[in-house]
């Protein structure tokens, strides 16, 4: 564990390095050398339908990085999925260089209490964006986004600004592609979750004192069974009794989670018809989670949610049932669920049916253009405008995952596309000439190669006409940037 002095040293070094204007460009150059670059030549998919590989990367990754489609075609989709499901097997040096200056994400919560909370929060958002843009472990990043919503913590509540960093690292990222039961267990004992849903204030019932059932309710409703999962108000209260006694230290190693037996209700509990014997103490939480994960509603609820996330807002029932069955037979093994979804005919048949959420829209734009991004200020503000800045969703259900919730963001998507393509973002630069050369595009009319690259298919006649008319309205130097802006703003690039 690093000492505070080590940390403060590292922090000031980072701050000093950041203060040097040249640092960003050095980082950018090093990470490009390590693979975050645009290849000399890109063969963009063609044909009237969205290319299969492009589709896979548009869902199981945050969209293709330039050259990714060819690379995955060579490797084979199934092998790529296998590789992605074993993230440690994938080297990620370029991403590590990009995120090297973000020191807070490596520190234990106790030390994060020494740092300005707003800064800790900003660093975490920057880290989240950079990981999503640059990590080669893309499926892991996609699942981090899924679980961050599933186990949502609004960072503004109480001590959560200090604690969410640890939750992101030790709960979400650590278990994003592992066992659901372990992820759930880690979340149940996460300091940030105990604070966010008041679990730390849940103690045994005295005559004038009742348990705080906030976390217990969301655990059943949002984390495991779903609101129609067949539990009753009484199950919520019994679950709350199982969860009594867990506290978060606020002094002397603040942020440490402890079990206080005196606050725990050690009597017998009955949850969903299953008896949890008296005297279980700190093990009650595990017994409770075992009951919940073994309940048939849990697999169904997660299957529905994953299929909605990866396939369609209203996912095909047959697929949901197969994924629920996979949950049961694998004991909630996340890679098994993902393999079932990503190799299904339903997945392949759902091309372009999802609306990108703003975070994905921003990240997939930056990836498609091979941007040199630092994600400190402007990108975060754009996400805020679109109501999708990480860790800001105010209620425990997490950012929604259906198109209808995000349709009011169009203007800000377009504004982002314009700012990025026109080179007005200090936070994310693109090299238009390099990209167009790699695509072999005619700079006076780059419409077809640009659309193929962004959409994974030929532009429709209507799309080509709209873009060409726009370019014709003001001939000149800015043509390639204008084409990129409008292509990013087009309806097809809002979908994935």
């Amino acid at each position: 564990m690093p000492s505070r002095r080590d940390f403060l040293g590292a922090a000031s070094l980072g701050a000093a390095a950041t203060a040097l204007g040249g640092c960003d460009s050095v980082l950018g150059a090093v990470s490009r050398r390590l693979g975050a670059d645009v290849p000399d030549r890109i063969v963009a998919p063609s044909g009237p339908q969205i290319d299969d590989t492009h589709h896979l990367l548009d869902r199981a990754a945050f969209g293709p990085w330039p050259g990714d489609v060819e690379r995955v075609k060579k490797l084979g989709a199934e092998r790529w999925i296998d590789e992605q499901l074993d993230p440690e097997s994938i080297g990620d040096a370029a991403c590590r260089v990009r995120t090297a200056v973000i020191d807070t994400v490596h520190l234990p919560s106790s030390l994060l209490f020494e740092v300005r909370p707003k800064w800790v929060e900003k660093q975490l958002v920057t880290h989240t964006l950079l990981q999503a843009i640059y990590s080669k472990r893309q499926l892991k990043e996609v699942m981090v986004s899924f679980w961050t919503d599933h186990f949502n913590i609004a960072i503004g509540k109480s001590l959560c600004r200090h604690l969410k960093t640890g939750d992101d690292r030790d709960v979400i990222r650590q278990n994003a592609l592992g066992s659901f039961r372990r992820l759930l267990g880690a979340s149940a004992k996460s300091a940030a979750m105990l604070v966010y849903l008041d679990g730390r204030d849940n103690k045994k019932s005295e005559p004038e004192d009742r348990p705080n059932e906030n976390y217990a309710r969301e655990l059943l409703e949002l984390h495991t069974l779903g609101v129609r999962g067949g539990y009753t108000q009484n199950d919520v209260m019994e679950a709350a009794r199982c969860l009594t006694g867990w506290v978060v230290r606020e002094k002397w190693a603040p942020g440490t989670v402890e079990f206080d037996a005196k606050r725990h209700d050690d009597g017998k509990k009955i949850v969903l018809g299953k008896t949890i014997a008296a005297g279980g103490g700190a093990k009650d939480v595990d017994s409770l989670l075992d009951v919940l994960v073994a309940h048939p509603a849990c697999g169904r609820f997660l299957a529905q949610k994953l299929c909605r996330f990866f396939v369609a807002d209203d996912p095909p029932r047959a697929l949901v049932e197969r994924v629920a069955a996979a949950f049961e037979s694998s004991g909630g093994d996340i890679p098994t669920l993902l393999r079932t979804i990503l190799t299904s005919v339903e997945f392949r048949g759902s091309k372009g049916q999802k609306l990108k959420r703003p975070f994905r829209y921003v990240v997939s734009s930056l990836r498609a253009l091979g941007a040199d991004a630092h994600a400190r200020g402007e990108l975060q503000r754009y996400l805020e405008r679109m109501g999708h800045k990480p860790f800001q969703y105010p209620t425990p259900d997490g950012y929604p995952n259906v198109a209808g919730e995000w349709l009011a963001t169009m203007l800000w998507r377009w504004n982002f596309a314009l700012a990025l393509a026109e080179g007005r973002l200090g936070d994310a630069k693109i090299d238009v000439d390099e990209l167009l050369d790699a695509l072999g595009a005619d700079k006076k009319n780059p419409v077809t190669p640009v659309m193929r690259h962004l959409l994974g298919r030929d532009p429709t006649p209507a799309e080509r006409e709209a873009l060409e008319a726009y370019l014709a309205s003001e001939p000149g130097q800015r043509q390639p940037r204008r084409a990129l802006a409008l292509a990013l703003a087009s309806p097809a690039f809002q979908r994935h």
Partner: protein
Amino acid sequence: MGKRREKETTRRQFLRLGDGKKKDVVVVVFLRGAADGLNLVVPHAEPRYYELRPTLAVPRPDDTSADDSERGIALDDRFSFHPLLSPLLPSFRAGELAVVHAVGSDDQTRSHFEAQDRMEHAGRTEGSESSGWLARYLRQSGRKSGLSSAAIGTQLPESLRGAPAVSVLQTLDDYRLGKERDPELERALRALYAPAPAPGDALAPGDALASAGVDALGTLARLEALGVAGEGHRAAYRDDNFARGLREVARLIHADVGLEAASVDLGDWDTHFVQANLFPSNVSTLAHGLAAFREDLGDTMQRVTVVVMTEFGRRAYENSSLGTDHGRAGVMFLMGGAVHGGRVITDWPGLAEDQLEQPGDLAVTIDYRDVLAELVERRLGADSSTIFPGHEATDRGVFRK
């Protein structure tokens, strides 16, 4: 047979607004997270209230042991305002503000999301097709003026889901595209989002994304015409998001661009833990925002109705962490020129053990749809039976006849 006659009687009691009359603008303020009705409007005549809430109770108006600023403000011999609601007293005393107490929905889940959706859809929860009650009103009202509805914030509230054209705005000023206006760009976007139908198009007709794009372009054009900057304000709003939201609604009303319905949220009412930390500042934000809005609108308030609602109330007894858990009935406030105010409208269920709904909640004795149905009929001139299908409304006399 008897039931049907009763329904007809009830229906006749609503004197629907005549065709020629100007409809109200309805402004819905949703208190997200379940606001504690028992501490907003205190039943000070109930000794049991003080037993259930040993630390959280608002002292009686005549409790001289408490500081003046902490005591409730008597509205009648049974109910008092939370002291921080005092900015709303002038409206109440002028008869323009009514309280509806022990009001709520029949939702039993005590889940914020279920109950909010239920209430904002008004009766329909199943399926992704469900629309909001304001949206159904707007569809029925038939006037398709540009900015007929606006939600202040970043997300579309469920009450407006399915509305003909809804603008989700944070402020009116920064609603623009690019650095400077580019008609060619707008034309190109219109061509992409509303293409002439052709085989093999990416967009099916009636596609939600296509309408969202067209709506965004339409709003741009409308705000351009409005001339957003420079409108003076007639009231001192506080510097918080809620007040800013109400100020934007007032601007749209003053600008007379055909606004029919607006929605503003005030969140953070989920006071499970140390209610005394969050609750007072929220109450103050609510009261100051509404008071400034009324002052800003002045005589225009005659054709505006503000509805303040929340998904459910909170448990009658406080919990071990000096907070309150999810309950059942809560309060609504109605403010406007036509409101029959200065009264606490209630069918009070009581707080005795056998009067509470298990596990210890104030029972719902007035369905929130009764209040909304009366609004819809008397002030909006619309047919409440299609907006609140399946609900037989009882006349609660919220508006002056």
